[in-house]
């Protein structure tokens, strides 16, 4: 990879994915993400946006194509996937916190077991991260004792504990009660302002417009349109996107 642009953190080329039942989830998708860039992916359900996100850290396998993260081919069998994944933080729709551990233990687990860092150091950083997402006082709570918004913020802290170079968000606010969406988006916004590279699959158009550098519209497994947020939302030059935005605005 001598000819690759060092600014590119993610480089996906001609990615296709077919599910076992024959459904074509991704059709020849190509995508690049630069360091420090915030990319929002929107689209109707079933358009393949979550699938695309999940192929970036190989939670989904691909049928064709190539994905490079930090210059390493994610779907190459020879690559050390576990090490690669430490550089790619992921936040899930359903939070997926470990219910048998406290918030603090959730954040500390991977740095301790994967990076084998000393416990005192890990604990100090985990406490800092919980403070950063506004949950310093919930360190000893179990996930069941936390609200959805609090759980999602712990999940963000957990992903950040690995000091990833990119964060993937898979519909991070879709499972939340409306009054809790704001607190999670605030944390994500702060993260974006710090210069974190982010890929966010979302239905929050306000967030995409305010925070994203680039917005990408997917439909039927294809990237249909992408542009800077102002142009994307105010003057979309694509009929499918127009229809989609129209439907959303109606609701």
């Amino acid at each position, binding site marked *: 990879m001598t000819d690759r642009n060092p600014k590119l953190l993610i480089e996906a080329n001609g990615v296709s994915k077919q599910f076992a039942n024959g459904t074509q989830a991704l059709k020849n998708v190509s995508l690049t993400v630069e360091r420090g860039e915030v990319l929002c992916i929107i689209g109707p359900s079933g358009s393949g946006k979550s699938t695309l996100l999940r192929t970036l850290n190989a939670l989904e396998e691909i049928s064709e194509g190539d994905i490079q993260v930090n210059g390493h081919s994610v779907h190459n069998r020879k690559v050390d996937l576990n090490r690669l994944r430490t550089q790619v933080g992921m936040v899930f729709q359903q939070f997926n916190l470990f219910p048998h551990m406290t918030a603090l233990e959730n954040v500390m*687990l991977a740095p301790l077991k994967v990076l084998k860092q000393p416990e005192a150091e890990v604990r100090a950083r985990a406490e800092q991260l919980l403070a950063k997402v506004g949950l310093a006082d919930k360190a000893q709570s179990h996930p069941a004792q936390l609200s959805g918004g609090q759980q999602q913020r712990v999940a963000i802290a957990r992903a950040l504990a690995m000091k990833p170079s990119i964060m993937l968000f898979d519909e991070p606010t879709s499972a939340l009660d409306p009054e809790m969406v704001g607190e999670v988006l605030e944390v994500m916004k702060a993260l974006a302002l710090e210069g974190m590279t982010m890929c966010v699959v979302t239905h929050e158009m306000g967030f995409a417009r305010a925070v994203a550098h680039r917005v990408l519209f997917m439909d039927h497994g294809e990237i249909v349109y992408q542009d800077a947020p102002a142009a994307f939302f105010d003057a979309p030059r694509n009929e499918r996107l127009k229809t989609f935005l129209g439907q959303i605005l109606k609701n």
Partner: protein
Amino acid sequence: MSSSAKKPTDRVSWVWHGVYALVILAIGASLYFASKRIDYSWHWERLPEYVISTEGEEIRASFDGFVEISEDGKTLTMTEMKGSGRETFSGFSQVLVGQGDLVFQNDVLARKPGIRPGPLLIGLWLTLKISAISLVFALPLGLIAGLGRVARNPAARNLATTYVEIIRGTPLLVQIFIFYFFIGTVLQLSAFTAGVAALSVFTGAYVAEIVRAGIEGVARGQMEAARSLGMSYPQSMRYVILPQALRKTLPPLTGQFINLIKDSSLVSVMALTDLTKAGREVVSSTFSPFEVWFSVAILYLLLTGSLSLLVRRLEKRLAHD
């Protein structure tokens, strides 16, 4: 005022408790009258002796020889018949031989006072011991086989499936015979070892299925979250999946251990004096089969009942965590 007024549901539930008591009484009474009709003389008084023996410990001769009892009757000396060995005993309460008697090796000379476990209690102890040791081996075996069942590696998965299917598809009694006569002979195992091996392998297969169900019961997102943090499959299993899965498996595992205690009665076919075999032996010396088998059943119930009580407490404590 409100505390003295009973809710109607309370009254209804008391009615049904009464029905329960009546049914139990009716069954008990019919058993009693049925036994009256079949000319069977009950001898419950014979039973306690076989649970806790007051006969005291027996003193046996360790060689062939002659008996010599001291004048005060407190010491007993044995002189070897063909040799010069001598042996002196004291502290007994009852002498069962006479002055100058010729006795042979292993004859009972005297009895020491005191109580000791009777054959039924000794059998109960063996049942408990063989079940507990089998459980100790069955748990790791079942854990490994259960992990194999959910593994992606075809070799591990097929091996585990073959093991589980073979064990669950054949009767335990047949397995015990195979372990005792075939494997036991080839590897020169004692009856106890063969029994432990058969019960462990048998229970392991059921534990494997319990573990598999527990792992599959953990939400899929848990494994994804763990892997997305860079944890390997074994690390994810160990720190994330298994702690959640094993908590869920506690109730079915208890049930399996209770089954193990009951299934262990089958080892009595290979000359192991467990509670069931002890029951058979006591029947042949008392000729009171009804009393003995009822007692044996109660002893099994004591064991299994206290176990489920223990685990229910443990579950409550885990639930509070």
